[in-house]
């Protein structure tokens, strides 16, 4: 089974045309500024939106003491809950919900096929997103084959922070890779994402060698990589890749704070202002000088 936390139709910003994004759960990285914190844990996560709560108490009844009220606030002991499946449908208001559920490849394919007329008309398709899609199990291949049978264009957003074999077996089934390159310096990469820059850089070289079409996506994050030497270094690396089609610069924003709250987590990457598109123009200019087409996304 595959673990999915959202299937979003009418996604307009993740590639060509009208697309449906499939958000998979589970990510090998722990980026401090992560915008999809509900995507990190490979298992379903309990999310609670206080604003919607009508205090019916259904979750307290269902959770066997692991959700309780203290000082007028709802306390959710996520550690002890373990598998939150039992809480899936208990809250009438959906103030408390479980993000992430297991779905078969066929189930997902049936869902994304619904917008086929719109993909056809707009040259759109499906975008695998996450989380890290290539951290999913074998069934991902089944899904990709089903999508190919329907001639649906597939893009995949990936951190490339997975063993190369997890990617290589799908290169013929993915039409476009949208791969993140957050930093080139091993120490900083490790510090801010918990990952290994070497693995990512190596996978980029292999992806390039495989002949696949790919875009490099760079989240520009203040306090992490928002400086000319750091971004230029990424661009310099990119310039050495033969099959790169574009670089996309993605300005940092802190809109996810609320989601952290709902997950009972603290958003620790504080004190940084949102980055404006304007601030990225110099990076885009440099990339152009290096002969790389660059887009600044919203």
């Amino acid at each position: 089974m595959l673990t999915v936390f959202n299937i979003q139709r009418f996604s307009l910003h993740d590639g060509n045309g009208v697309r449906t994004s499939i958000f998979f759960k589970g990510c090998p990285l722990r980026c401090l500024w992560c915008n999809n914190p509900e995507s990190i844990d490979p298992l379903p996560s309990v999310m609670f939106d206080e604003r919607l709560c009508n205090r019916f108490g259904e979750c307290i009844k269902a959770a066997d003491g692991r959700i309780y009220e203290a000082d007028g606030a709802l306390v959710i002991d996520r550690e002890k809950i373990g598998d939150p499946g039992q809480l899936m449908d208990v809250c009438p208001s959906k103030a408390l919900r479980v993000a992430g559920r297991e779905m078969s490849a066929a189930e997902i394919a049936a869902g994304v096929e619904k917008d086929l007329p719109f993909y056809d008309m707009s040259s759109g398709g499906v975008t695998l997103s996450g989380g890290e899609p290539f951290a999913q199990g074998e069934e991902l291949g089944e899904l990709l084959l089903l999508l190919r049978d329907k001639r649906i264009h597939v893009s995949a957003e990936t951190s490339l922070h997975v063993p190369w074999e997890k990617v290589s077996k799908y290169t013929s089934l993915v039409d476009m890779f949208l791969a993140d390159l957050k930093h080139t310096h091993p120490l900083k990469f490790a510090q801010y994402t918990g990952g290994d820059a070497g693995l990512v850089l190596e996978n980029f070289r292999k992806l390039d060698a495989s002949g696949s079409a790919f875009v490099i996506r760079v989240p520009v994050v203040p306090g992490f990589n928002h400086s000319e030497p750091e971004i230029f270094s990424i661009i310099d690396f990119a310039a050495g890749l033969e099959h790169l089609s574009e670089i996309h610069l993605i300005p940092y924003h802190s809109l996810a704070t609320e989601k952290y709250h709902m997950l009972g987590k603290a958003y620790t990457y504080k004190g940084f202002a949102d980055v404006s598109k304007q601030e990225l123009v110099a990076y885009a200019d440099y990339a152009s000088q290096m002969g790389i087409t660059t887009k600044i996304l919203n």
Partner: protein
Amino acid sequence: MDIPVTGIRTLSPRIKAMRDRLLSSRSTICTERARIYTMAYAEFDSYPVILKRAHALEQTLREMTLFIDEGELIVGNMSSKLRAAPIFPEYVTAWIIDELDEFDKRPGDAFFVTEDQKAELREICGWWKGRTLLERGYSLMSQQIKEIHDAAIIRAEGNLTSGDAHISVNFARILEKGLGGYLAEVAEYRKLLGEVNEQNHGRKDFYDALEIGIRAMESFILRFEKLAAQLAGNENDEQRRSELLTISSNCRNISVNPPQSFYEALQLTWFVQLCLQIESNGHSVSLGRVDQYLCPFYRNDISEGKITREFALELLENTWIRLLSVNKIRSWSHTRFSAGGPLYQNVTIGGQTADGRDAVNQLSYLILESVGMMKLTQPNLTVRFHRNIDPVFLRGCIDVIEKGFGMPAFNNDEIIIPSLISLGVSREDAYNYSAIGCIEVAVPGKWGYRCTGMSFLNFMRVFLAAMNNGLDTMSGKTFCPGTGNFRDFRSFGDMMEAWKHQVKFYAKAAAETDTAVDTALEELVPDILCSAFVDDCIRRGKTIKEGGSVYDFISGLQVGIANLGNSLAAVKKLVFEESRIGREELMYHLGSNFEGIEGEKVRQLLLNYAPKYGNDDDDVDKLLVEAYNCFIDELPKFRTTRAGRGPIGCAYYAGTSSISANVPSGAVVPATPDGRKAFTPVAEGCSPTSGTDILGPTAVFKSVAKLPTGKICGGVLLNQKLSPSTIAGVEQKEKLISIIRAFFETLKGWHVQYNIVSRAILLEAKKHPEEHRDLVVRVAGYSAFFTSLSPDTQDDIIARTEQTL
């Protein structure tokens, strides 16, 4: 090559001044028509009704105040002052008397009236007591129909208080023959009638009335000839004097002859449009395919150097101002069904020619551009989409939509033309359809009144009756004994059966209501000019209502479509499949309007755990289709009052173009199983319930396209509200075009229209109406000035889902 709509042009000072003048003028009342009609009715009391009305019209056109305002190029006023609404006492007086002191205190659509006018209206209305259309209509209803009507399960008030219309006359033919040509035709057919006898005296009266009416129009136009000449005599400005002289000579020519130029053709078109609305109180008097019938004139003038593109634009813009100068006062209860004072004067452009080629022409571009520049509520602009439509023109449409005033709306040839052909409309006529009023369609100049807009059937009242063994809890009456109480239903099948049983009864009741209304309209307020200009009234010697038109199909409006589907799905899943809510429990909480914490819990379950129409979910969409089809399948049993009297059809189809009726209709419906609270609005048209379409516009398109659209010729109304960012930039616009194409070409959607206004702006406009007087929004099948709407309709518009990226 025409320049696509770009918005770089600014309005000329003349047009801008006219626009400002119109927008800053208050709605008032004009008593002239009421006074003249009353005196004429008294004078010609003993005459047949058609002649009585001919004389009343003649006297009005002869005596009413005329004026030509500063800078105007297209002339012809409806009443004694700009934006003054005339009164049509022969239709109804009861509400005028009752509401006279409240006109200026309405929360929306207020009218200002002087004390002198009040006194005069009281006197006039006194004379009409017992003689009005409304009274006749009620007298023709059976006791039960009247009770159903009073209980507000079926409403036909608009039809009885405002007459018919919802029609487009044969403008193409009028421009070809001129008024003189019509008079000649009347004379010819009268001659064919031979000696008057018992059989044909009605037809003779009809021809006499036509002659009086058309001649009255000629004289009316000649009054403008004189007025313009007189003003020219006093005019010092050389340019304006020459303009006035041109107006005068235009009027002289078109009073009898076919127009010789684009300018004359447009002026005559307006005079016809105006006189139809002085004659009848009906609205949705539509202009048909303006780009098609006016383009030959435009092309010719351009090639002969008689006109410039800029001047043609000014003339069009002046005409749109004229359209908006038409004003109408309706009873407060009816006003709530059509909030914002709309006149629904539709202009349709684009589409295909009779041989299936793209019909977009130079004038289509000009009309699109001029409407886009004016950003007014009139005309109601419709673009006929088809798969081969000029892509540059289509992009221009999106540019105008981006301006955020709800226009143009799209109707889809790909489904509408085949549907019309399957009804028995000739291929050539089907390819020539136009939108009428909001979104509904008819063949202009050949179709009778009200291709939609007959009675409103409140589906959710019917649904609740189905749950209550036929009892209508609002009135305490059982109009159709039911199949049992919900608490005793054993399966979902029992629920569906109960619905089917009730809706069949109410479908029949709606048709009976329509018959009473139509009979009253035929007997008391036959139209002369409108009949003259619709084929084949002259040939048959019959008014439209007597069966004069070539085609006659009508439809009522079914209100609460999404609520019906959602209620069925909620009951099926949560009560019968999952037993999450008990039957008794549901009935109890519906009765108490989900009172208390237990009630709210049930409501949240209904809202959050049952599938909702608009999310491309078969579990609800298919139930809705089954339930709606049951109503639609009843329709072939009913015929109109014209059956056997001449027209093709005389039959019903379904319709959902329910204007702003979702607010007042919801206001008489208790809580429903879709989690909707008592007396709040129901969903409008075929759009999903506000806030429940959570998967975006493509899923909405898929749901809507599952409806039996081929059988809903009265209109499958879909409002989509997009945030401005969704169509900012070329790439985003292309994406919007591609989903519209998929909806129309692949899914065979029927109609879509867009509101592109941010929620923030609407909230701001509600708070500070004075600063947003020109903010136009799409209400239903039409646009209205946002600030003229009542607060509850404003809230309803704000609540409609804003689909974002």
